[in-house]
């Protein structure tokens, strides 16, 4: 049991605390322990509050770690007879609870049948909780993880958008403009001090997302919609549509700053949720009604769908080819691609594949983040 009273001296107890903190997820090193001892030597250990504040500033490096630190500190230095479950206890557990799938997923709740079954899970030794969360299949998330993922996705998408903006900004600077540089440096007696670079014209950058919300996508469409909402708040030029047997433009419905409110608005309007799939006809409808307005040579089109189409393959082939011609790049992200042994042999997917620039998976948050490289190179 981790408690300071198990040690013979104060410095030993501090080392013990440092190790306990590390076991419970804080990234503490030897330097931290050394500085903790130094701060105690400054007389801070005489005052309980000051001692805890000092250790917190040394051991916790973010506001989340601070929240983690408080119970670890209290249990180690204050209470007796309680124990925090060791992270390692969880890591190698062979079973996790998995919610079974109910086809009637409701928009705005994402709740599925509560009857639970235990299934085998992979051992995740060595990866921290964020990494595990990013790699967890959307269909296997529990309620707590859902909430955590919401917070994490907001943060990661914001970082992603920042990186993309910066990278694109850098890409605007081109080759050295020799003529301009020589003229500019005449004032320096011809010595080339200032180098002038050509500037690329900033392209108007657009993103179009078509999300499949048919019955077969129930396990994923809710999370993908949440991801879409997050994207919408970090990328200005984004258009979003849902489709199953009919097409619905949801760009404006996602504009609300409150996620729950946005989802509720989508739910009020999405009459076709969880129905059949007619990808070809929906894409055709898009090409006829919206393509002129929302597609130009700089649009990156992303289709989020499992490709399980019940319509005519010829219609899909024609529609997807038209979509490809009008977009800068056409990307298809399929949640089923994350499954082991998946082959795109269904008629819909088979028909669409030749027209795609990129075919990726969309079964977990990590796979969605791979969009970054596509967006940068678009």
């Amino acid at each position, binding site marked *: 049991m981790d408690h300071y009273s198990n040690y013979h001296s104060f410095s030993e107890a501090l080392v013990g605390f440092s190790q306990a903190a590390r076991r419970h997820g804080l*990234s503490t*090193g030897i*330097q*931290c322990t050394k*500085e903790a001892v*130094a*701060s105690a030597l*400054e*007389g*801070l250990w005489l005052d309980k*509050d*000051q001692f805890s*504040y*000092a250790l917190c*500033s*040394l051991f*916790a*490096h*973010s*506001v989340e*770690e*601070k929240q983690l630190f408080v119970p670890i500190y209290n249990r180690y230095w204050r209470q007796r007879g309680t124990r925090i479950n060791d992270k390692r206890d969880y890591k190698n557990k062979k079973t996790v609870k998995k919610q079974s799938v109910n086809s009637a997923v409701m928009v705005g709740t994402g709740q599925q049948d509560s009857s639970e079954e235990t299934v085998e899970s992979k051992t995740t030794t060595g990866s921290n909780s964020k990494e595990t969360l990013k790699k967890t299949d959307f269909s296997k998330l529990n309620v707590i993880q859902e909430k955590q993922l919401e917070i994490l996705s907001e*943060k990661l998408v*914001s*970082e992603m958008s*920042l990186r993309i903006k*910066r990278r694109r*900004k850098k890409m605007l600077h081109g080759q050295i403009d020799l003529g301009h540089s020589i003229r500019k440096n005449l004032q*320096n*007696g011809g*010595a080339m*001090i200032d180098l002038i670079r050509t500037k690329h014209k900033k392209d108007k950058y657009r993103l179009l997302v078509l999300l499949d919300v048919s019955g077969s996508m129930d396990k994923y469409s809710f999370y993908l919609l949440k991801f879409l909402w997050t994207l919408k708040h970090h990328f200005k030029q984004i258009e979003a549509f849902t489709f199953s047997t009919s097409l619905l433009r949801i760009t404006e419905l996602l504009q609300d*700053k*409150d996620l729950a409110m946005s989802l509720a608005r989508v739910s009020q309007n999405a009459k076709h949720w969880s129905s059949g799939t007619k990808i070809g006809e929906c894409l055709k409808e898009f090409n006829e009604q919206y393509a002129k307005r929302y597609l130009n040579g700089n649009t990156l089109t992303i289709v989020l769908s499992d490709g399980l189409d019940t319509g005519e393959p010829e219609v899909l082939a024609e529609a997807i080819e038209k979509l490809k011609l009008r977009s800068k790049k056409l990307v298809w992200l399929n949640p089923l691609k994350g499954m082991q042994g998946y082959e795109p042999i269904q008629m819909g997917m088979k028909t669409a594949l030749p027209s795609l620039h990129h075919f990726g998976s969309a079964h977990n948050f990590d796979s969605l983040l791979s969009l970054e490289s596509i967006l940068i190179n678009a």
Partner: protein
Amino acid sequence: MFENPKDLIPAIDELGYVIEEELATVLFLLLKLEKPLLLEGNPGVGKTQIAYILSDLMGYDLVRLQCYEGLDVNNAIYEWNYQKQLLAIKIHEGGQKSEKEKEDLIFGEDYLLKRPLLRAIDSEKRMVLLIDEIDRSDEEFEAFLLELLSDFQISIPELGTIKAIHKPIVILTSNRTRELSDALKRRCLYHWVNYPSMEKELKIIKKHIPHIETALAEQIASYVQKMRNLKLDKAPGIAETIDWAKGIAVLQREDDPIYSSLSCLLKSEHDMNVVTSELFS
């Protein structure tokens, strides 16, 4: 100078900054351990102000480096004075100096333009170095800072390593628009600056506007606390609260000074609409 964190509280209070024991303890450690301090928190909670207060408290000069996208070594650490170097080359063109001597001359300290980080390291006196809004800088720049933050030294290829004569007191602030690297965080003490509690906000208002009536100050603090729980584009910070209180004091003879001075506090139409409908309807 200060034997206990509690000694810092009245000293800082005298300088016009209301501080709790937790932050006082962290500042005490900053002074004793000479380790950089990373302050994170929402915009407007008074992070930058802490560096200024510390500079006043200790009587050290403050050097501020405002970070932005694209900030590089040339603007943060040092740059060679190219024009002066070129001039020196022209002057010594027909001279007796050897190539090596000329090179030593133009890459000497006289030709070095010291930017904030080098100024803080190279100063004869101890300084407070404020690296403001580090989250706005690029990740590459963060990597440049690591050497400075751990060893208080800067390497200049042409001159060698410059070690701090007096270790500066380093304060970094971040609004958390992006996550900073673990390597940087590990080198710093950490403190999250939160919005003030009702009591603290009341104290701050009274400190800045001593003649304000207690009831009015309470009303202002209470409104601001409520506003921070609303979904606003920009939650009001401490500076805005003080501006609002001052605005109300100026408009005291108007019909509804609290409502009519709201523009001191809220900076967008959306926020105005939300606050009006939630708190003033």
